């Protein structure tokens, strides 16, 4: 956790147990009890915003880790019999990652509702997990990492088998520490936002709804049962993507309750008693149980490096690191394969573009409007989805390229690094935000050119993708130029109007 976050938590943390303190202080037996006072520098309202900030970061971190884990799954590394299982697991985890994206966006809506700045950030390396579920780790799916995911999403009172086995594996995979349950944080937020004595009604600003994300725009039809059954239709009990516009205390609390429920809840139940929707916890646990039935040594993932990163420069010499990583040391794996190096930078850049697009969308009004014209909001939302697709493509390429120069991808593949950019702040003026996009696109086009001219060249399908990506970027640039002219014209008109007065 970043020091600026940890500092605010210290006031409610047991001094003798700094690592576990945060969760313990927020949770009392039988339910959640708020502390008597907020931290000295924070009002209750500021404290609520702070918890939402933490929640946003956690959702962001979880979705990236789940995405990474899903991308490492590969049916081609297992025998024929288990390929359908691996395909299905991958789909389930990708579905959960999408739901985490929904949580992430929904928390931004609540931040909008309380007139607070958005938080699109995420913990990056080096990492610490004071209040966070577990150390942020991009790693291939193993029974250990899966156990961590189950742990953070599990209900507090889960004790039935294989609870003990899962908890032990999760601790082992988290350097001996028990992960923290996400549910605790949501319990804290729900309790605080529900408390009319600490949080007054005017904390909730209803006229921010136009600047929030709506399901119609962001939901992409992912309603109940729509995911997890893509391939075989035998796993239809998936919940819906939760993205709601909130306009009051009640709707905000309801939204947070839904998110908490989607993580660990038992879900909706049909009259027959059959579960209609499966929480993240249940779906992860299903995978765990199926995996156990196949055998604990079953390995459905590519050997993708843990925490892959790229430096600014590509090392000239082959620097092979053949040492096994220390499981207690939060290592990063530096990508030194020349081709993977540039693909990884492109993946980082497109990840940044996704976050910039998402942030920009929240600055554009019009969630509830009707229009017959091109809207910046529509374009930006579309771009955000397009970047999600690009991340899928780039991850698919990177898990098949070696980590190290001269290395063997089947033994240690690079993987998508998902490194955070130096800033996610957007310029203040709309015209400058479009210039911001323009710079990112130009950088991407230059990077595409670099990859295209590598010697030896990338595989044909990689080149085919780059050609389409470049063309898509060039078209986006054309549109941006028009947006810049339009915004500049508006600015000039405003200046002229001021002059006339």
């Amino acid at each position: 956790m970043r020091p600026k976050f940890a500092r605010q938590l210290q006031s409610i943390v047991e001094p003798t147990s700094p690592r576990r303190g945060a969760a313990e202080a927020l949770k009392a037996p039988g339910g959640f009890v708020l502390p008597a006072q907020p931290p000295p520098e924070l009002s209750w309202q500021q404290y609520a915003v702070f918890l939402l900030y933490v929640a946003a970061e956690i959702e962001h971190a979880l979705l990236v880790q789940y995405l990474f884990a899903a991308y490492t799954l590969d049916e081609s590394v297992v025998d024929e019999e288990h390929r359908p299982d691996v395909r299905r697991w991958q789909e389930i985890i990708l579905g959960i990652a999408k739901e985490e994206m929904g949580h992430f966006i929904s928390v931004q809506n609540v931040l909008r509702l309380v007139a607070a700045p958005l938080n699109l950030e995420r913990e990056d390396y080096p990492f610490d997990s004071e209040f966070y579920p577990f150390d942020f780790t991009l790693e291939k799916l193993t029974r250990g990492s899966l156990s961590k995911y189950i742990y953070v999403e599990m209900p507090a009172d889960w004790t039935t088998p294989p609870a003990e086995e899962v908890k032990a594996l999760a601790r082992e995979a988290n350097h001996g520490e028990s992960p923290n349950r996400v549910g605790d944080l949501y319990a804290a937020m729900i309790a605080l936002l529900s408390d009319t004595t600490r949080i007054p009604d005017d904390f909730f600003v209803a006229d921010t709804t136009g600047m929030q994300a709506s399901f119609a725009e962001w939901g992409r039809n992912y309603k109940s049962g729509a995911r997890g059954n893509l391939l075989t239709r035998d796993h239809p009990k998936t919940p819906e993507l939760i993205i709601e516009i909130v306009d009051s205390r009640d709707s905000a609390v309801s939204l947070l309750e839904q998110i908490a429920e989607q993580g660990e809840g038992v879900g909706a139940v049909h009259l027959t008693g059959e579960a209609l929707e499966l929480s993240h916890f249940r779906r992860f646990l299903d995978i765990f149980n199926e995996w156990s039935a196949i055998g604990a040594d079953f390995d459905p993932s590519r050997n993708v490096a843990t925490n892959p990163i790229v430096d600014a420069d590509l090392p000239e010499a082959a620097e092979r690191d053949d040492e096994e990583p220390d499981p207690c040391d939060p290592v990063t794996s530096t990508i030194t394969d020349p081709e993977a190096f540039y693909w990884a930078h492109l993946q980082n850049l497109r990840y940044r573009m996704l976050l910039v697009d998402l942030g920009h969308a929240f600055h554009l009004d019009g969630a509830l409007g009707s229009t017959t014209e091109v809207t910046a909001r529509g374009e930006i939302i579309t771009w955000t989805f397009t970047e999600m697709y690009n991340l899928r493509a780039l991850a698919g390429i990177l898990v098949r390229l070696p980590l190290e120069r001269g290395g063997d991808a089947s033994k240690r593949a690079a993987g998508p690094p998902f490194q955070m950019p130096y800033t996610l702040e957007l310029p203040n003026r709309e015209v400058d935000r479009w210039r911001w996009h323009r710079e990112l696109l130009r950088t991407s086009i230059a990077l595409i050119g670099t990859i295209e001219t590598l010697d030896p060249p990338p595989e044909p399908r990689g080149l085919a993708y780059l050609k389409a990506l470049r063309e898509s970027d060039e078209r986006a640039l054309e549109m941006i130029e028009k947006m810049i002219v339009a915004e500049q014209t508006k600015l000039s008109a405003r200046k002229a109007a001021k002059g006339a007065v």
Partner: protein
Amino acid sequence: MKRGELVEIRLLPPLVVARLGASDVPVDNYDVIVDPEHPLAFRTIRPAPTFIVDTDTGAITGVVEREPTFKDEQNRVRPVAPFIELWGRFDGGDDWVHLTADDVDADAVRWRVHVGNVKVTRRTGDPDDRIEADTGWFSTHDRLSLRGECANFVAGKSIPLGYAQFIRPTADFPHLRLRFTPGSGNVYGSNRVTSGPDPNIVDQVYDANKGRWFGYSEPTSPIPPIPAFTNPGAIYAGNDGPNNSWVSFGYLDDACDGIIDVELTAGGRTLGAFARVGAGAPAFAPDTFPIRTAADELEQILLGPDVDPADYSVEELQQDAEEILRRAFETVRLMNTAYMNGNDPRNIASTMSRQDNGDTGRAFQPIMAPTLVDTLAVLNLHQGVFTTLRSGAPPWFVTVLREFNEIGDLTDLGRRKMPGMMRNADARYLVLTRRQRDKIRLAANRTNGSSARATQTGDPADE
């Protein structure tokens, strides 16, 4: 080389599509290709070898390859006039060959072209409204007019439905083939008019005293629907009539379809074959393909709704998924998607929003989030999906495709499924064929486990 005895004949292709046009010169052949350097661009139209036919002699006089134009100097649409080739199989062989005048005696080859336009009969139920043209059997190389005659026409009047011509084999072009040239794309009317000369029609052919097509009416929205009607009903030129009826102007057109028969005698046996021909409207966006084409329908009819994975490689399935995405963004650029979305209720165009409203009373309201449906955004989104597919990523969007049994799902989510905002022939939402959908499902279901790059050591698991 002397072949054995001819034992079977076929007309190929077995189905040809002609496109109406008033120009004397048919459109040249062309290929529609994707420029590999510009995968998101329009398809490129490339010239292809084209026969030049002397219609007086029926002989092919040469082959040209030139930039196709779709209208002539007088701004008349050039028709698409397809050739139908006579193929045969000889005793002792499995190969089918395009027959030449060396293989069979061209004078002994007999053709018959029988086409009709029964659109009016379909509505009035009157067999005397059938418009038909029949060449009878012929072996000459004259260009034969297809005079569309009808019992309910004014005496001596007919509608030209085009021409049939048995191409004269020559030393340079000895193959046996027939050319079908469609009608001009004109509109014809009745001998009874409501007021003054009608600028839409080129001739008054229909005798309103004999038939009832002029003034014929259908209820616009019969409840329950009448199966014999088109769906939606009343899709002919006309005016509002009493009691929500739609009253026909008595218009007719020169579209048609029918059968081309061929017979010949070989070795004392008469062999026969036939092909189907249809003549429809010109392609006004020839570089753009609909999401669901007649070819997709035919493939499903021939091969079934389910795809056998053994029939396709992963790459082929991936290409099919890409092709559907390409067609999607090609279609998008032809549409005003914001308008199709029902965003502007002041002028209610014929959109799916209106259709939902008219047919079922559903509220007239946008289908998609209004901000998302400007053409550029929709185009970008589909191109983004397409771009990702190019990387080899399996398609992940099967669940947003509309199922064939969801065409009447008018919930918000049902209406947002893909293909979006487009009407099928049954008046409800467009769906892909089950076979198209199954291909995408299979493409999603099969990953390509090959390495992004061959490693130095190689690894069997990655092969």
